[in-house]
């Protein structure tokens, strides 16, 4: 059945591999996926080590519902200590790798050590081999997946892999599977690179028995209808995530020229409708009806004829608005380059936009850039810089270090131009008009990010009864809620609710487009409970899933605190407070975050979490969540995956 998958402990230094059952108690306490990863990382990682230390664990997992009749149950989660932030590293990707990992018999891989030479893991029907990767080391992400299929003589193999950027220890290198599914954030690709682990290839033909097949089929149909009956899903089915830009750019909620403007003026060339010129069809992850990205062929320039997938809203910002480029082809090519090199598109775009602002202000000069004119809207320079970052050439070598380290190397006050939290750059969204979104990026457990706790539906200014229906459950919250997105009041609750909702989703392995992210009518806790029951037989109430998500999120918080996180890390760059927005509709124009109100928001947020004034989970909370032994100063099990 869906619960008999194993956890494998893999020591790359010694080649030792141990396979164990996943105890049912772990399922009841952490469900699986990201939640169980958090537990395994906290339990097994020595505290305070460098992310590139061989002792740093990498967790790769498939959630409890992956491969089953949950809607879009495709997600792979990867967790480790981040080389970008020195805090929690965590990334999530779609595709077909996670289901294949389960069909091959495993739910969780705990990997540590460092292979003496480049290797890859070959996982097939309960077996795990460590194999020589010398023939694929150095290859780009597209070609190496094809090469692996040829080498292992099976076209159905699914691979999680790193590109040249990961090999070169770019601190925001991603892991990928397929043409575009990327676990992009926090530099997980660099951690694999530091272990000489190029790829994990999977192939399985083992049953995932569905507990109640008839009911699960019926319920899957209901879930799918619930998701694709919403307007936002239907729009995404047609255009992919780039549709978001139409609203956010015209409102003035988009970072442009790093952080100088909040709208790309005259930016219609990069509207999603233009994709029809290059699209050859849409593409869905495993079992997904939303199919949110395009398959496209680049039409112009030196990359004409190249087939790639996407681009996402994130790439539209990274190679469009942030760097001031109003050219769809630059986005298409940039997206292709980061995917084939294995770079986080979002961090890459942010680092480049930052470098361009430094160039504009004379902090970087032609001497630093080897003559590359880092001027706003310089399409060629943007594409050239991506390659330089991936190969760590010239200025790229500095940018490859990520925001804080690069700012330290460059000096000259460059740090104040960064748009980051905890050392990770933000999406191209501009949160100055939206305190709830600002709180989300300030407090997210992996740094500035839109998929950790973003209450995106706040942007719809929904009527209060709709918000109440979503945000008062499943624990009966009776505090304030407000519907205007410029408000501060009642927002900490919705950030915390989204945090736990996304944690629950990541435990199941479903996609966030199938929960309350872009629509208030999408599945959440009650639906998760039913879906888990029909597919696995495990019974949870919606409130129990909420509590589990809270437990897992608290463990992530404890991990960060153990690595030195303090209250001051839950804060925004000064620019959010000091530079009001210059463009946009009245709801977005002349907005900045109010320091005093924002501090009060953080207080309220900590209070809701039952964290103390310094953001440390209280002993009472840990007792309540049945993880009292995890108290930062308490006894902690150490050692190799006990």
């Amino acid at each position: 059945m869906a619960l008999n998958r194993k956890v494998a402990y893999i020591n790359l230094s010694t080649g030792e591999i141990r396979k164990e059952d996943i105890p049912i108690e772990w399922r009841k306490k952490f469900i699986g996926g990201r939640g169980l990863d958090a537990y395994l990382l906290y339990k097994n990682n020595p505290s305070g080590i460098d992310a590139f230390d061989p002792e740093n664990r990498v967790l790769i997992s498939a959630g409890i519902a992956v491969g089953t009749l949950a809607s879009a149950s495709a997600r792979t989660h990867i967790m480790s200590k981040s080389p970008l932030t020195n805090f929690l590293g965590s990334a999530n990707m779609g595709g077909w790798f996670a289901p294949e990992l389960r069909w091959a018999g495993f739910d969780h891989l705990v990997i540590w050590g460092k292979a003496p030479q480049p290797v890859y893991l070959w996982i097939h029907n309960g077996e795990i081999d460590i194999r020589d990767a010398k023939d694929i080391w150095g290859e780009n992400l597209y070609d190496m997946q094809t090469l692996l299929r040829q080498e292992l003589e099976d076209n159905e193999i699914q691979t999680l892999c790193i590109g040249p950027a990961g090999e070169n220890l770019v601190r925001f290198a991603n892991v990928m599977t397929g043409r575009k599914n990327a676990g992009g954030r926090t530099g997980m690709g660099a951690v694999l690179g530091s272990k000489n682990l190029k790829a994990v290839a999977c192939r399985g033909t083992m049953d995932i028995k569905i507990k109640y097949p008839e009911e699960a089929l019926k319920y899957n149909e209901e879930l799918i209808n619930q998701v694709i009956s919403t307007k936002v899903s239907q729009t995404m089915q047609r255009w992919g995530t780039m549709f978001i830009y139409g609203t956010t750019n015209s409102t003035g909620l988009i970072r442009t020229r790093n952080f100088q403007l909040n709208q790309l003026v005259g930016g219609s060339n990069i509207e999603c409708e233009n994709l029809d010129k290059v699209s050859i069809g849409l593409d869905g992850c495993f079992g997904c009806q939303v199919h949110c990205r395009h398959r496209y062929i680049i039409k112009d320039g030196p990359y004409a004829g190249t087939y790639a997938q996407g681009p996402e809203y994130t790439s539209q910002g990274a190679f469009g608005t942030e760097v001031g480029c109003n050219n769809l082809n630059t986005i298409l090519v940039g997206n292709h380059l980061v995917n084939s090199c294995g770079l986080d598109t979002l961090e890459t775009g942010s680092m480049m936009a930052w470098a361009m602002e430094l160039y504009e202000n004379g902090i970087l000069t032609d001497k630093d850039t080897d003559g590359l004119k880092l001027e706003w809207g310089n399409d060629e320079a943007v594409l050239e810089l991506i390659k330089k970052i991936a190969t760590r050439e010239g200025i790229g070598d500095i940018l490859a270090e990520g925001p804080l380290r690069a700012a330290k190397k460059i000096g000259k006050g460059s740090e104040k131009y960064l748009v980051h939290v905890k050392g990770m750059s933000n999406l191209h969204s501009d949160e100055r008009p939206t305190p709830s979104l600002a709180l989300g990026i300030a407090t997210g457990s992996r740094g500035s990010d839109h998929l950790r706790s973003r209450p995106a539906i706040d942007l719809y200014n929904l009527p209060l009864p709709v918000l109440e229906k979503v945000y008062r459950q499943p624990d009966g919250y009776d505090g304030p809620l407000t519907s205007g997105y410029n408000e501060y009041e009642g927002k900490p609750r919705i950030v915390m609710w989204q945090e736990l909702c996304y944690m629950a989703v990541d435990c199941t392995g479903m996609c966030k487009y199938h929960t309350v992210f872009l629509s208030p009518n999408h599945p959440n806790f009650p639906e998760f409970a039913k879906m888990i029951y029909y597919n696995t037989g495990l019974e949870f109430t919606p409130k129990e899933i909420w509590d589990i998500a809270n437990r897992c999120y608290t463990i992530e918080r404890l991990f960060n605190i153990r690595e030195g996180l303090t209250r001051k890390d839950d804060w925004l760059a000064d620019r959010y407070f000091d530079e009001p927005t210059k463009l946009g509709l009245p709801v977005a124009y002349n907005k900045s975050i109010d320091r005093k109100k924002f501090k009060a928001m953080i207080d309220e947020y900590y209070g809701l979490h039952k964290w103390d004034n310094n953001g440390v989970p209280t002993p009472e909370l840990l007792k309540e969540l049945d993880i009292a032994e995890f108290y930062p100063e308490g006894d902690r099990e150490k050692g190799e995956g006990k």
Partner: protein
Amino acid sequence: MAKMLLVDYEKCTGCRLCELVCSVKHTGASNPSRANVHVVKWEDEGFYLPMLCQHCLEAPCRSVCPTDAIYRDEELNRIMVDYDLCIGCKACVAACPFGAMGFDEAEKRVIKCDVCDGDPLCVRFCDMKAIDYVEATTSHFDKMRDASRNFAELMAKAHGQ
């Protein structure tokens, strides 16, 4: 009127939900290797094609079967296996030009599409209708209409509309 399964590769997004629901319906387990449909993907080109039994009129699987275990069910316009007669020789697996006849290791028998007795789940769950279940005798009219659209537009232009 008899229906048929019709595949439109241009609509397929490659999600493989058809494989999942097929295997759960027929085996109670999620396992594409036991499904009767498979989306073949040419990932370097971005081309996806769901492959499944065509329920051929002159079915090679039926021709090679030494025990006449494979028969045509006229009512549902489908090719079926009579497992009481099947000896598991797998000649049909070798003979099928589409690879649509599989062998299920767990059940130790050949497997193929049975159009879910008239309500194919692959169709029900595919909102793109990359696999559709349509009237065999009239299914081509839609294609004709699509193919003639260019002419219609040209004619409209010619008439100055």
